[in-house]
């Protein structure tokens, strides 16, 4: 590998990191404004023009807060946990292609790599809940563990159809295979993946590990300052990741007429992000057992049936 290659890769990583952080900060701002719009109120509009400096103010506040750890926590795990969530999500972004030429790595098992990292991300939440050594976080951590196991399986299976159609695990290949966006060919796969994606990042109606009405604040009850912010960052980067994956896997990625590739990618991704916001304002939270039932009795069979249908239709086609 040449020096130039290394330089490009490193530069790309730095760019991606910075870009993601800024994007996520404004996602939080955008969510607050969008929710406010839905709910007949204004949202943050004081810091800077239209409140656009709000993310900066929030970041400054969180960074300057005392990094306090309660005396009863398991110190090592307590400090490790908040790092895991954003770390795994950030690593996943390495294989997401923003356009024909913009990606950091094109792995031939890219899809599996993303699934693998997302299955590791849950450790942040579980360990955060456990290490706090307190009951509400523990319950939140337990819920997170059960939820992840139940929703990762259908999530992975939902993608099998996509892989069968594209004949590859590589995200770049998958986009290239989508002369027709896969949402048309794989509507069930899309729905299952979308629902599981929402569950994966703990957003309403699947925000049970947090469930502030029941568990105070769930797994992050004992966290504050920047450690708390890392969980938060992880959640929003997760939303962005799921949205980009939906774009890449089902909406044809960067492909589209007239506009530049990256613009198409951004448009599609933020439309999906908007869907997350919309969902959050519209629905109540599921109960723990209903969540499990839904995962195992509806999502999993749906994903399996989807695979069978895709296979049968695919063979008939060929």
């Amino acid at each position, binding site marked *: 590998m040449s020096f130039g290659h290394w330089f490009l890769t490193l530069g790309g990583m730095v760019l991606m990191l910075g870009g993601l952080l800024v994007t996520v900060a404004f996602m939080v701002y955008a969510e607050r404004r969008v929710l406010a719009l839905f709910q007949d109120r204004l949202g943050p509009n004081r810091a800077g023009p239209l409140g656009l400096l709000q993310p900066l103010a929030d970041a400054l506040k969180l960074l300057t807060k005392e990094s306090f750890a309660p005396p009863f926590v398991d110190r090592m795990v307590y400090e490790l946990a908040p790092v895991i969530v954003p770390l795994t999500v950030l690593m996943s972004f390495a294989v997401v292609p923003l356009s024909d030429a913009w990606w950091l790595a094109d792995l031939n098992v890219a899809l599996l790599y993303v699934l693998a990292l997302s299955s590791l991300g849950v450790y942040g939440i579980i360990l955060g809940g456990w290490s706090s050594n307190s009951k509400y976080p523990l*319950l939140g951590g337990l819920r997170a563990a059960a939820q992840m196991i139940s929703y990762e399986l259908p999530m992975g299976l939902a993608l099998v159809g996509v892989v069968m159609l594209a004949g590859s695990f590589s995200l770049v290949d998958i986009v290239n295979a989508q002369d027709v966006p896969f949402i048309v060919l794989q509507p069930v796969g899309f729905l299952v993946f979308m629902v599981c994606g929402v569950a994966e990042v703990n957003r309403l109606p699947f925000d049970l590990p947090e469930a502030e009405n029941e568990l105070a604040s769930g797994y992050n009850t004992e966290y504050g300052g920047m450690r708390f912010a890392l969980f938060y960052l992880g959640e929003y980067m997760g939303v962005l990741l799921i949205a980009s994956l939906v774009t890449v896997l089902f909406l044809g990625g960067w492909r589209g007429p007239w506009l530049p590739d990256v613009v198409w990618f951004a448009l599609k991704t933020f439309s999906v992000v908007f869907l997350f916001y919309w969902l959050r304002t*519209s629905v*109540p*939270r599921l109960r723990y057992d209903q969540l499990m039932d839904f995962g195992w009795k509806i999502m999993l069979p749906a994903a399996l049936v989807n695979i069978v249908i895709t296979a049968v239709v695919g063979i008939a086609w060929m």
Partner: protein
Amino acid sequence: MSLSEELQSRFQAQATSLPKDAVETYHIPKDQLTPALRFLKHESDPAYDMLFDLSAVDEAARGDGLTVFYHLLSFSANRVLRLYVSLPAVQPIIPTACEIWPVANWYERELYDMFGVDIVGHPNLRRILMPDYWEGHPLRKDHPNRATEMEPYRLPDERYRRILESVQADDDTESGAGEGEMILNIGPNHPGTHGILRLIVQLEGEEIQDVRPDIGFHHRGAEKMAERQTYHTYIPYTDRIDYLAGAQNELPYVLAVEHLAGITAPPRAQVTRVMLCELFRIASHLVWIASFGHDVGAMAPPFFAFRERERLFDVVELITGGRMHPAFFRIGGVALDLPDGWREAVNNFIKRMPKAVEEYESLLTRNPIFRARTRGIGTLTTEQAIEWGVSGPNLRACGLPWDLRKIKPYSGYDEYDFDVPTAHEGDALARTEVRLAEIRQSLRIVEQAMARMPKGPILAKEARYALPRKDRALQDIETLIHHFIAVGWGMTFPPGESLFITEAPKGMNGYFVVSDGTPHPYRLRIRTPSFPHVQCVPIIARGHMLSDLIVILGSLDYVLADLDR
């Protein structure tokens, strides 16, 4: 044999002359109490199904000893019966009624807490509203009314430490928690309890084995405060009992006092009262929609409901000058005449409200997740509900159309055309549907009140009992003197007792006023609906999941100030 004769012959009850509120009243000897109560519940005709209220009056200032009173309610005959039991002031003892009515449990604890009455056979006789380490029994006449009459309060470190230890929730390791069980302490500060309420929950996994509510954190001594206020100056305090329903609390109080004085408010005042009360019923239900929606995890209902509530409060502000706590009703009428432009304001509000209710329905009762979260959760049967003193929308959600506005109309409610919404499942979803339907009915009543608003005075003519108008007081000397005396001193009301029960947004709200002819109430008993509602939480929460507990709590619609007074 009539009930009265039977009570007198079998239980040596003595009927008293009919009191001001025309409630049948009997004195009964202590040893006959338990059989008499049992008889009244099971055998008598009519049967008195519900123990509505139970408390006492300390007679120290006008005689001797204590008088414990029981208010029983008969659903079949639509009647209230009062039993008095006299006890000595020193070491008063009374048998428990818990075995007859489980709802008596908390009421008897309150009796013990407030008066020091020892209840024989009570399963869990501890203080309920005051902290365990409180000294004295607050509603006794010898307990100081003002902090300045007491010794400065001291809490040495050692004692403080012991107190803190005594209120700690049991650890998992302590006995009582079996294999895989966990004690979860919810509250006193927790987002799901709507205020300072503590629940000690025994969980197995996430399944609730038992709930022990710990209340009293919001106790302000509202009943004790009445004893140092004049009848009129107490009105603002009533607003703050169920602080979400403002004028709805004033109504039973002023009606009870009006009964005592034997006056009635003029028609214009009555219609104004009804209109305001129904607006406040809507306000209370709106807050309930907001908080209940939030309890289930929905984010939008709070904003949508509070938006309408603000508009409603604008109307209330225009009419009364206050928003949440108008202190607008007066004994014998209301404080002010309706202002210019009230009709347009009210009209604007009731025009826009049906669309809002439509929105709440689409966000809540028509949302499949919401339905799944509330259907079959916290189910009460009608029998259970009556047994546990449940009233209001919670009772009507069980299928019993028991609404005092229809059944026992007051303030001219019989002249309005409205329905009593009911449901049959008795669960959280049924309660939601009933309350949403009630908003619609309240809108109908407001509309009719607006249409029929009669002309005329807004205060009763009886100058002895009604506060004179200030503007007139500045005109002629006679009114000035009356005003000076009435405001500076307080008016005296004839001795006697008077109970008035109204249909508040949360259930049956009863104010029991005992007067000894001085300018202050001798005893004021406030029976609120939230108290029995919270008491029955453990019964309906057992076996549900932790998330359901929050739904159950929310669906019962209690307010901490209403619970602890």
